[in-house]
């Protein structure tokens, strides 16, 4: 089985099958580039992902493994009617996978899935963050994302007043 070494920003190496890695659009391109530039067709590619740390890379690979037999969804590919595959149901496994995660980690996963071009993972993570934002109040969002207001003086009131025109018109 052909393997590839994927190395995280903090130096952890993951040895995975090329078949699995190629389900990421980015890794697929990297593996092909490596193969074109290498004289030895048997050589094992090594890919450094400088923007993703080990904990996150492990989660992405774990998700890929679970979904390795799903049909491949090309990055950015839309259906003919312009709708993405967001309608496709989320599996129980995905829900359990995301459930214990802090939203900070989910945001890191969004960036990782976007960078590695893993469409299915990107969809479910975006949907999760979106569900914590859309239709929620300011306080609910701050609680969910563990954020504190850092507005000073009347800045918060000012923002509320600025918004008013758009809400009323």
């Amino acid at each position, binding site marked *: 089985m052909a393997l590839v070494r994927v190395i995280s920003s*903090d130096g952890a190496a993951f040895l995975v099958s090329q078949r699995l890695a190629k389900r990421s659009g980015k890794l697929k391109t990297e593996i092909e580039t490596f193969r074109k530039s290498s004289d030895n067709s048997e050589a094992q590619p090594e890919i450094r992902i400088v923007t993703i740390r080990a904990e996150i890379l492990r989660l992405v690979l774990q998700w890929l493994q679970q979904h390795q037999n799903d049909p491949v969804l090309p990055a950015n590919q839309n259906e003919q009617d312009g709708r993405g595959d967001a309608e496709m149901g989320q599996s129980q496994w995905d829900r359990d996978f995301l459930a214990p995660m802090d939203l900070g980690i989910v945001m890191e996963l*969004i960036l990782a899935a976007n960078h590695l071009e893993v469409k299915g993972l990107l969809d479910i993570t975006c949907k999760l963050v979106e569900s914590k934002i859309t239709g*929620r109040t300011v306080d609910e969002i701050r609680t969910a994302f563990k954020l504190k207001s850092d*507005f000073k003086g009347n800045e918060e009131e*000012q923002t509320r007043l*600025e*918004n008013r025109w758009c809400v009323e018109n």
Partner: protein
Amino acid sequence: MEHLNPTEISDLPNEMLEEIFNFLHDPNDFLSVVGTCNRWNDIMAYRKTERLFGKVLPILLKSDLLPLRTMLTLRQISKTWKKEADFQLEEDPSKLELKYGIPNAEQANRLIAHASNLPQGGNPFIGKCLSIYKGDPGSYDSIHQLIQQYGTPLRRITMVYFSRIQFASVLGGIPNLEKLSIFGLIDEWDIEDEADALPLPTLLRLNNMGIRIFGEGPGDQVDDDRYLRFHSFLLTAYGEQLTTLKCSKKLLRIGRISDLLPNLRRLELFKAHGLTETYTQPDLQVISQVEWRLHTLSISGCYIPLTAELMAALNNFCVTLEDLEISIELEENFDADSLVNFPCLKKLKLGISSELRSIPLKMKDRLIKLAGVAPNLEELDINLRNGAMCDVVWSMELMRNVVQKLNVFRLLPSL
């Protein structure tokens, strides 16, 4: 106490590291910090939701997930979230359904009242955009007052039906203007001799202009020369700084148009209102001779026969063109060899119309050859009209022949 004499950054206590990392405002720098080692990640983990938001929000918006009301709520969460939400709202106000339209005096006065209620430093125009209509005759004074008092933060403005004096005066109140859209007739056009005296203000940031004229239909008796005189004057004043121009093909008739816009990178030609417009040989000749290094060319509103003239016009931008939108009419005897290589072309949106009920074999060969002129294509949209062109086998062949880099392919068959 070795901590008093640290020699390496890893010797610093957590609190000090945290202080240092908080100076890095770019989300990419933040990502590098948490990506360095577990200790640094643990120190900064509590700020991820705040600091990574600037990178996450554009990804969320790519799939059109957030309605305007939500964007407004995001502005109220924290300073960073407000900054990032505002950045996106200013990037593309219309996509996020942000509208500041002032159709009449009443609305202008309401916006003035709204602006005057804001605390010092408040921005009355979220998204920094505004559309103003001359509307009823009394409205100009209110609009003028609004702009003079509050126009400084504005970046984009759409102006509909203004006289040239009003036009210049309004522009004078928007020193930071980047994008100017003119809709409709700039009326009260009574200058024969005064055109050159039009006092247009200096707008250092202006780089994007859209010009659309209403009433260009054949029955409207619009005096084209007067328009062109005005628009030519506008382009003489601002042309050198423009990188984007959106207009109808009529503007191409302005003399020395190539010289007036030396830095143009993006040209969008749309169909003038009320005209069934085709691109004639002289039009295509102008396009094939301008000296613009266009990255983006969009010609919409009509199907242009795929003649040697059209190919010569496209070939003029072959070195720089990255994004092309065009609709062509296929005739059986076109010659694909006239088209040269487009090494930078990444995005192609192609409308195809044809009277042919099915594609003859030798024409398919030529079409596939045509696909080969853009070896680095990443996104291809094909929209078919008329005839039995939705030949699936052909489209698959086309896709296979447009190299592997292609990662988006959409085919809309004719109905």
